């Protein structure tokens, strides 16, 4: 019998794509679907997904939980937990459209809720930490339930299938976001579990990733010391936890965290001016186990903005382009040109050099 994601480590190739509007203007999911659809051959129908930022302005201060349930029993148990731990203001089944190639769908629900004041009085950590703990608890302890999105004013949408079909299925043409990321997956095994599709998310972090990191176990064993559990055994999961640890919990700046994950080489550091040299030496010394090795290109969404990062040897393709207030990223140039035929600027993201696009004030 084939093992489910998390019971076995499955390497996979991929396509990734992203669009962000630096003016904060929101736009529908049509373009991102078209972009990722062009890279059809980079996925194999075993996983596709999207993350969208700014889609829930009416609930922008509430945590938006997107949940897969294997059955109704899992839903009852999870709801019991959620209603006990959150003031849920609204919940519903996530609307979907019948799509030919999308089969064996689980039950898919969403919930919008706030952390009750009474709960927080008892704890010495903040809402995000509380929510991260709740998410990890549901995913570990309630059989058949999987929270695949838990940020504010953002959401992930994913399924087993080609990404363009997944976009169609979730009716993403009807949502408006200021930033979209997309993922098409080429796993080298076929467990066919929806939770295993990407993006991987935690709170407002969402990560789409193309590559296979060979440092996986070094990264996993490091981050698990801080209470994370890498249950899915995927690269994206461990990268998300690294960012969450460094940025949210340890308070490092996002770009500095990127310089830890794709650290400058020692030969470069040795030739830096003294102060800079000390800083980067300290980063590499203290966070040596956070270095990500092997081919990767990642697009990281968060409340801070959109970050694009390539491995330091540039072993995976990642292109960026700009037109007007819009900035594009994709695994292939063609996936940008299909939706933006004449960009003002187009170039490869350099190996190990983070590109960060901060989010503007969102226009509702």
């Amino acid at each position, binding site marked *: 019998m084939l093992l489910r994601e998390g019971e076995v480590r499955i390497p996979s190739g991929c396509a990734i794509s992203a669009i962000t509007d630096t003016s904060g203007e929101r736009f529908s999911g049509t373009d991102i679907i078209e972009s990722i659809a062009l890279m059809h051959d980079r996925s194999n129908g075993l996983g596709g997904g999207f993350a969208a930022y700014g889609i829930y302005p009416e609930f922008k201060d509430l945590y938006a939980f997107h949940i897969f349930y294997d059955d109704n029993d899992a839903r009852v148990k999870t709801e019991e937990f959620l209603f006990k731990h959150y003031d849920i203001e609204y919940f519903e089944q996530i609307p979907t459209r019948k799509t030919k190639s999308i089969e064996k769908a689980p039950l898919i629900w969403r919930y919008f809720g706030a952390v009750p004041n009474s709960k927080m009085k008892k704890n010495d950590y903040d809402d995000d930490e509380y929510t991260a703990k709740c998410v990890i608890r549901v995913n570990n302890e309630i059989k058949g339930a999987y929270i695949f999105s838990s940020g504010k004013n953002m959401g992930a949408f994913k399924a087993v299938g080609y990404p363009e079909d997944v976009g169609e299925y979730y009716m993403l043409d009807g949502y408006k976001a200021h930033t979209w990321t997309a993922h098409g997956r080429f796993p080298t095994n076929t467990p066919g579990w929806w939770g295993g599709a990407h993006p991987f998310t935690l709170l407002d972090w969402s990560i789409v990733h193309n590559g296979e990191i*060979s440092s996986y176990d*070094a990264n996993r064993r490091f981050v698990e010391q801080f209470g994370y559990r890498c249950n899915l055994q995927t690269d994206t999961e461990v990268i998300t936890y690294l960012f969450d640890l460094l940025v949210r919990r340890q*308070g490092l700046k996002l770009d500095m965290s990127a310089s830890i994950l794709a650290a400058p080489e020692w030969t470069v550091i040795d030739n830096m001016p003294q102060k800079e040299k000390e800083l980067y030496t300290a980063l590499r010394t*203290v966070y040596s186990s956070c270095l990500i090795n092997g081919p990767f290109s990642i697009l990281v969404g968060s409340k801070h903005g959109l970050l694009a990062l390539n491995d330091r*040897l540039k072993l995976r393709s990642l292109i960026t382009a700009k037109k007007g207030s819009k900035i594009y990223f994709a695994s292939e140039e063609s996936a940008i040109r299909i939706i933006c035929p004449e960009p003002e600027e187009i170039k490869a993201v350099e190996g190990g050099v983070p590109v960060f696009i901060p989010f503007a004030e969102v226009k509702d």
Partner: protein
Amino acid sequence: MNYTVPEFEVERNINRCISCGACVRQCSYEVHYFDDDGKTVLADESKCVACHRCAAICPTRAIKIKKYDMAYKEHSNWTPVMQKEINLQAATGGVLLSGMSNNKPYPIYWDKILLNASQVTNPSIDPLREPMEIRTFLGRKPEKLEFNENGELKTKLPPQIQLETPIMFSAMSFGSISFNAQKSLAMAAKELGTLFNTGEGGLHPKLEEFKDYAVVQVASGRFGVHKGYLESGRFIEIKIGQGAKPGIGGHLPGEKVTVEVSNARMIPVGSDAISPAPHHDIYSIEDLRQLIWSLKEATQYKKPVAVKIAAVHNCSAIVSGVARAGADIIVMDGFRGGTGAAPTRIRDNVGIPIELALAAVDKRLRDESIRNTVSLVAAGSFRNSADIVKAIALGADAVYVASAPLIAMGCHMCQQCHSGKCNWGIATQRPDLVKRLNPEIMYKRVVNLIDAWNHEIKEMLGGMGLNSIDSLRGNRLMLRGIGLTEKELEILGISHAGE
């Protein structure tokens, strides 16, 4: 009456022998001698230890050392070795002594662990084309770094030791080895950007120039320890135990305590240098804590303090305690580690393999979320670069090697270090033997060896799709067991080949 038979037989090809007498002059064990005619070379093979010095020096390759061929009535329990040892003790009433390391056929787990390589889904990396980083830092790490509003580093890092290779030379005192041997290691450490270790012998004044490449050891005898000594080293190592002889101290016989050794150790010439089994000011973990912090205080918190323990049954809990007691670096020495002298029974029966100890300790420190704060150094017989790659993947930051560089300097593993008669000029203080080892030549052989290993480590890293040793540390997915039991795999924290 001879109750025992010689171990070796000297075969001299008289057609080749030119009676030059080189073997007679070279053999400190006095195996070779001239017959009364002053021409015929004879051998008293009962004294031969198979160090091969004579064979190596013989200009006509006339000498072969063979196993002494004496048949015993077959008995798999009462082997010839067992009988010989009983006879030795019956004759002397003494404790059996040995040099070097445990020579019994216990499992060597390095040989039952296989490494991974990249295929298709991620590319292997060519070390000839891409930078391949093996720089390693040892020292206590803060849990996180903090910055001020201007993005400048606020956290002050505890002292860190930068090594250009994860390989260091482990403790061998001046006394147990010769000045020339120690100097060769010091010179090699300098050229390689790594460290040698003074052991418990103090730092010889002539090696002061290498102090930036020295680890200074503080052991139970406290020989040669003074403020200047502590301040000389790059880090200070408190030696609690040694893999070759866990639970016991050391003994440098008075005849090895020459004027120079006496100066370095600060003890009278000709007196036995006894290192007690425990430190008599450390009877508990809280006592160790006091010594760690006294040494830090004495060196103005500029030097990391390491604690070295032998790998024993309960080492995970011990190491956890040592980390919490304030050690910045923890060294674990497995039961195949070498020694200048150890009681044979202890050498061969006490302690556990470094592979299992390292895996268990690394896991324990991670379970307690403190692995990242300390550095782990593994010791206890690394025979080649693959052993080292496996150790780092199990969780070590760096390794100590000693036997391998000694072999590079001529050691043939005859295991007679305790006799002080080392024909290769390594484990001896006899001036005529010491001068046989030329540091200018031998340091280069040691450098060559470690250079070669560094290259091999980079090749293996590249094959695994890694270009930094940082990504290998604790990366146990890169390892698979072969022919190991479930329990062994569980302790090593690895899957079986094919999984």
